[in-house]
């Protein structure tokens, strides 16, 4: 059983996320949007959206650093362990409350309610559950910043290097395993929901030129031309 959840599910989830994600982007670029509802409801959104996004970004960042760059994690976490744990606990609570607030907003504002799809409800419920689990795990099994590095991180690495070893985590408490389960479920849902918006965070705005000019065909070098020349035209050019 634990192999299904700790080995099978992660592989299926990541495969779905990548394969379906790429397929969806290739075949249905139009559907990629964050579907902001700010135009419809502005007041309740502020506390919910800003707090939720900042909290979850920091939390995910901590997870990823601890998994991907353990030495760096050692330095920042080791330096201020207690403060870090406390901060993490507060963040997860803030994230949970903000998300709850957002969910309440979707119920209470008619305008937002009608633009909420079934998948939105599924995703937001799972996220809420995941935040609650994360908070409870952090609360009941202290010093997660430490045991994560020696148990969860090696397990994830074993998965990433195609040498899956569930033993690292199979003896962990139920709450923790449930947190894993929901996490990978969310990854599996990523390509089927509006979660796709998170890979489009426009970091390149920091350096892109303000103005964009596109020519159907650049008349001379240095002027940007439209990037997508339809396939059939490219082929014709090659053959003639």
């Amino acid at each position, binding site marked *: 059983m634990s192999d299904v959840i700790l080995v099978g599910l992660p592989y299926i989830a990541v495969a779905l996320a990548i394969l379906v994600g790429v397929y969806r982007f290739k075949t*249905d*670029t*139009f*559907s*990629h*949007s*964050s*579907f*902001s*509802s*700010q*135009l*419809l*409801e*502005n007041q309740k*959104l*502020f506390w919910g*959206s*800003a707090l939720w*996004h*900042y909290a979850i970004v920091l939390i995910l960042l901590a997870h990823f650093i601890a998994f991907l760059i353990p030495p760096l994690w050692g330095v920042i976490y080791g330096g201020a362990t207690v403060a870090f744990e406390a901060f993490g606990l507060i963040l997860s609570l803030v994230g949970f409350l903000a998300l709850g607030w957002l969910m309440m907003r979707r119920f209470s504002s*008619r*305008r937002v*309610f*009608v*633009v909420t*799809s079934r*998948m939105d409800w599924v995703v937001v419920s799972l996220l809420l559950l995941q935040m609650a689990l994360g908070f409870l795990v952090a609360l009941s099994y202290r010093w997660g910043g430490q045991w994560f590095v020696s148990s969860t991180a090696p397990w994830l690495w074993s998965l990433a290097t195609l040498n899956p070893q569930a033993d690292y985590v199979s003896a962990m408490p139920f709450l923790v395993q449930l947190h894993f389960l929901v996490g990978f479920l969310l990854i599996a849902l990523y390509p*089927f*929901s*509006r979660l*796709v*918006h998170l890979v*489009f*965070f*426009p*970091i*390149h*705005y*920091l350096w*892109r030129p*303000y*103005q*964009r*000019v*596109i*020519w*159907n*065909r*650049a*008349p*001379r070098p240095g*002027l*940007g031309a439209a990037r997508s020349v*339809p396939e*059939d*035209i490219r082929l*014709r*050019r090659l053959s*003639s």
Partner: protein
Amino acid sequence: MDIRAQVSMVFHLDKCIGCHTCSIACKNIWTDRQGTEYMWWNNVETKPGTGYPTQWEDQEKYKGGWERDSRGRLKLKLQGRAGALTNIFYNPSLPTLDDYYEPWTYDYKNLFDAPEGDDQPTARAVSLVTGDFMDTLEAGPNWDDDLGGSEVYAANDPNILKALTENEQQAVRTLEQTVFFYLPRICNHCLNPGCVAACPTGAIYKRGEDGIVLISQNRCRAWRMCVSGCPYKKTYFNWSTGKSEKCILCYPRLESGQPPACFHSCVGRIRYIGMVLYDADGIEQAARSNDHGLVDAQKALIMDPFDPEVIAGAKRNGVGDSVVAAAQVSPVYKFVKTWGLALPLHPEFRTLPMLFYVPPLLPVIAAIRDGQYETTAGMESAPADETGPNLNTVDQARLPLSYMASLFTAGNLEQMRKVFHKMVAVRMYMRQEQVGDQKEEEVEEALRRAEFTSEDCLRVFELTSLPTFEERFVVPPMERERAMDGELPPLDPYSRKAAGGFGFRDAPARRF
């Protein structure tokens, strides 16, 4: 010099009758879909008035357009680059649906299906967003239509609040002084567009060939910064598809040599469209001019289409012969450059809008006063004398010059007065020609002041009052075939059949 071509426009406000035909033509073609009901890519506002969305000109609220920092560099009023990323979860300056209005239809079915009863059945309003009944309708398209002297609308026009003295504001609200005109607005297809600059993704772009500003529906991710970045509030967020949309200047029509639908259908024939050649190298410099120099700096970007150097520059950039030829007979060039009659709307937003307005010389209104029929009642303190109406009343207009200057010259009164002097000259000259009741020396003085010859007056009159369809709309087909073939081997003209179009092969609806 980096010479490019731009489809540019002139609206002659003296001719607009406020019929909204333009708005309807546009709506029927482009924004009659779920999520776009509230959008009016073309809208016609009554001025003075609060406009659509409410008080859109108030950039302290909406933060659209550009401003200069202490070192004279341009920056978006909305936010810096890092600010865009930190505000992405919540845009503090976004207008909400209530700043526009909640779109609705009526429950017409009830008129037929209602059970028999004592009362007439009614068709209640139904929200097009939620589908719920709406009991009170508090705002709608053109809610302030024709409410020129209104305490609610006219009095809260940002230009009135900003540019007029207390007394002048009082006068605008006085019933006997009521005055208004119409301001049709579409996207200005700016040279320095705020919408393009504000989009974090870079989904918005200006077309090199004709300067039309478009939003890639495939690249838009609903970060909605363009809605704020455009000071004219001419990008709109489609709440149903999660994509921003804006006026596309009917490019499918333009590409085949037809004017956009709002131009084509305009009942007052106030609209002119034509090509201009401009120097793209000067854009930033022009947008950084001081307030009172902005209009001249922008006009200086528009080049003489007969200048051989300009033509050579255009050729270097691949501007086709037919485009240059069109630029040489452009009605826009005449109004903006040759005659200096047309001005950009709110140049102080610094986006260099390429839609220009001939300001309204507000009407000669007749009224009975002391039992006398006076044709100059529209112009206070300008008594008619036996020789006919006194048309020479720029500084006594009911709407103070400062109001017009706040709209069209960033507050530069001199520049505004000059345009009106030209319009007065044309009006007096033509009145003298056709009715002959003006004083000869006054007409001459008016011409001198306007720096117009009688020939100029005639030409302006002709293009204002008698232009044909072909004179108002000078758009060459966009040379699409040429642009695609160019120096490359010839293409089978059918190769793009069913592959191009508007770019959608799936319904543009929400799927996830």
